[in-house]
């Protein structure tokens, strides 16, 4: 009997909160511009915000005359037309309405049930609530992408960090490839450090995407190498060989994912939607190169350590219980920069480029040097070649 009462109390505390959020939350999500976005009936709490202003203030107006900013997809206040046609989303919205106060409330119980009185707290719950019900990034409309990014940026702002999350897609006629000169690498592991800083990995467990194996001359099997060496390098009679995610052209990790949370982009990069991954770790078992890393606990990363220049599919902050891995720094490369590891390497052992450009250095290396790839026999077609100068 007593148990039941407590449960009712719990529900009573949760539900009214959620409801008045839905009323009051509409306007509070706006970044800078004046946007009183009115949402349609079946999206309870989405799309509160507008980053750049200039948004029409009522639904009717929005339908008639979407403003210029909205068309660019930078604003979360676009008309709902697309969302209505898009069936899966629509069903999801229906579910979202139905389950109000059940499963998700439990997930959010900690925050939701502490009396949320300040508008800030209410906003945070509202944002997290919408985040919980969003779809897979690959299936989102431009508008939905914009609004989730807005929520992510706002949530980061609320914890005191200004971040900029990009959703820049693959560039035309680009297929990224990588070459690693095993003759040049001296095992300094500057790339490892640069990667950790660039990609916001968990500092607690010292998660690293890149592994540098110290190999005795005359050996080639990685089993015989050592990835955890702690002495001065380079060591006499040894050479060094680095691994990371090879962005396989035929990736087994993608095939096995039960929810489609990981996929290959047009520019050949294998990405993970960290907010869609259920953490089953099937992909980790399927990767023949041991490239994937799991967040066994809530990642530790202070605001100072966090790199604010982020991409939705790459280095944005991860959560507990999801998979992650190297993306060849797509937050940088899609803007035309080199990956952080390439930039950091003092010996020039790392070469990155566009495989579709016949003039690129990587193409020249593949054409003129003796190159090999790891576990060629598995048919995964890694886009990562090893080579030597002589």
């Amino acid at each position, binding site marked *: 009997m007593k148990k039941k009462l407590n449960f009712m109390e719990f529900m009573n505390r949760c539900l009214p909160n959620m409801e008045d959020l839905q009323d009051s939350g509409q306007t509070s999500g706006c970044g800078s511009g004046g946007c009183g976005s009115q949402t349609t009936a079946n999206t309870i709490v989405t799309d509160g915000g507008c980053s750049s202003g200039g948004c029409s203030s009522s639904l009717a107006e929005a339908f008639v005359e979407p403003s210029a900013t909205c068309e660019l997809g930078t604003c979360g206040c676009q008309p709902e037309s697309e969302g209505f046609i898009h069936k899966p989303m629509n069903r999801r919205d229906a*579910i979202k309405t139905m389950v109000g106060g059940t499963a998700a409330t439990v997930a959010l119980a900690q925050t939701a049930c502490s009396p949320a009185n300040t508008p800030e707290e209410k906003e945070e719950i509202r944002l997290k609530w919408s985040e919980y019900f969003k779809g897979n990034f690959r299936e989102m409309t431009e508008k939905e992408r914009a609004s989730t990014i807005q929520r992510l940026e706002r949530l980061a702002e609320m914890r005191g960090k200004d971040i900029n999350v990009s959703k820049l897609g693959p560039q035309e006629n680009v297929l990224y490839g990588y070459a690693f000169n095993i003759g040049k690498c001296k095992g300094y592991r500057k790339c490892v450090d640069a990667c950790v800083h660039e990609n916001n990995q968990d500092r607690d467990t010292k998660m690293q995407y890149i592994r540098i194996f110290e190999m005795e001359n005359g050996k080639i099997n990685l089993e015989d190498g050592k990835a955890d060496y702690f002495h001065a390098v380079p060591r006499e009679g040894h050479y060094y060989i680095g691994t990371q995610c090879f962005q396989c052209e035929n990736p087994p990790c993608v095939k096995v994912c*039960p*929810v489609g*949370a990981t996929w290959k982009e047009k520019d050949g990069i294998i990405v993970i939607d960290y907010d869609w991954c259920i953490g089953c770790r*099937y992909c980790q078992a399927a*990767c023949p190169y041991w490239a994937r890393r799991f967040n*066994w606990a809530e990642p530790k990363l202070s605001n100072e350590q966090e790199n604010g220049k982020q991409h939705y599919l790459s280095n944005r902050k991860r959560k*507990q219980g*999801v998979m992650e891995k190297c993306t060849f720094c797509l937050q940088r490369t899609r803007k035309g920069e080199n990956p952080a590891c390439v930039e950091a390497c003092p010996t020039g052992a790392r070469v990155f480029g566009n495989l579709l450009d016949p003039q690129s250095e990587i193409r020249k290396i593949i054409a003129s040097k003796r190159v090999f790839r790891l576990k060629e026999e598995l048919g995964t077609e890694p886009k990562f070649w090893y080579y030597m100068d002589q």
Partner: protein
Amino acid sequence: MKSLFYFFFDGFKHLYKGGPSYYAWVIFLKIVMLVGLYAWYIQIRDGLQVTGMSDHVSWGFYISNFTFFVGVAAAAVMLVLPAYVLHDSDFSQAVLLGEGVAVSALIICIGFVGVDVGRPDRLWHMIPFIGNLHFPESMLAWDLIVLNGYLALNSLIPFYILFCKYRGIKPNNKLYVPFVYLSVFWAVGIHMVTAFLYAGLTARPYWNSSLLGPRFLASAFAAGPAVIIMVLMVIRNVWKFPIRNVTLDKLAMIATVAAQVNLIMLGSEIFKEFYWPTEHSQSAQYLFFGLHGHDALKGWIWFSIILNIIVTGFMMVHPIRKNHRVLPVLCLLLFISIWIEKGLGIIVPGFIPSPLGEIVEYTPSHIELMVSAGIIALGIFIFTCLSKVAVGIEKGEIKKSQ
């Protein structure tokens, strides 16, 4: 509609009828479940770091047990086979308890998958149309479908039979027997799909063998009937439910044959791995002999294999197998040996060494053991409830009042 309501009402009421030992049993199960629940809470709060798993051995005790209990679920339905072979026995009665075991084992399986994922709150992403199920590429998507289908099949058939008996009607054979046949084939299906989960991964040569599926099946058809024999004997003694010796003997026969086949396949694997060991034999090397001084599983696997050989040997002798004092002991030992072989010997070594040749060992943590105990207790609890009601109806203790 009304009788459906009373069916459930009477069923639940029956659950509260029982002697002190029944109550003690149920309370014991509930305590274990609560302990498991608490451990799971800690795991959710702090993340999977509280388990023994790591990026190197990324599946452990949970997935091993999942695999094993899929086998038990699949084999449970084999109880209907002897009934078929024997034609004269009461068919529906045999189906009921077998499917009760199947349902409980499936709930255990689903429980193990549920606690293994890092984000149980996002499991709705797997629901077709609402989320996106990656079907047909992902074998895990297949597994989800076949396991739930099997669960539905095995809940609905007994429900139909019991509901008929409750109302005093004879179940219509034509209505449910086709589904019983289907469930036998489906049983093979769930097991093969589960084997394909692992066999499809070229990254792990230890699993990437065409023998994995058949070997799974053989060991399941040895361990499953062994469980059922024990369960039937307990039910026969405690609830005075008439179960004929011949049913037990047939089951024991199935278990024996399956155990023999399992041993033959094990032998063939061992031959392949060790006659000319290659780089791909390293996992087997680790499992049976240890690798570079790491040999956490060596003792377990040899214990299991030796036990398995001895028990199978005894079961091959007719008088010993037919002695119903010895049989449950043999079944228990067979069950334990296969549980170790499949539980520790199939999943974990697949991760050692890692695809890049690093060796990191694995031992389940206390939290993992507690959560696992909780899930198994949940399965046993559900079986206790289901079989109590089923036996009650079969014996005519629960009847629709006029």
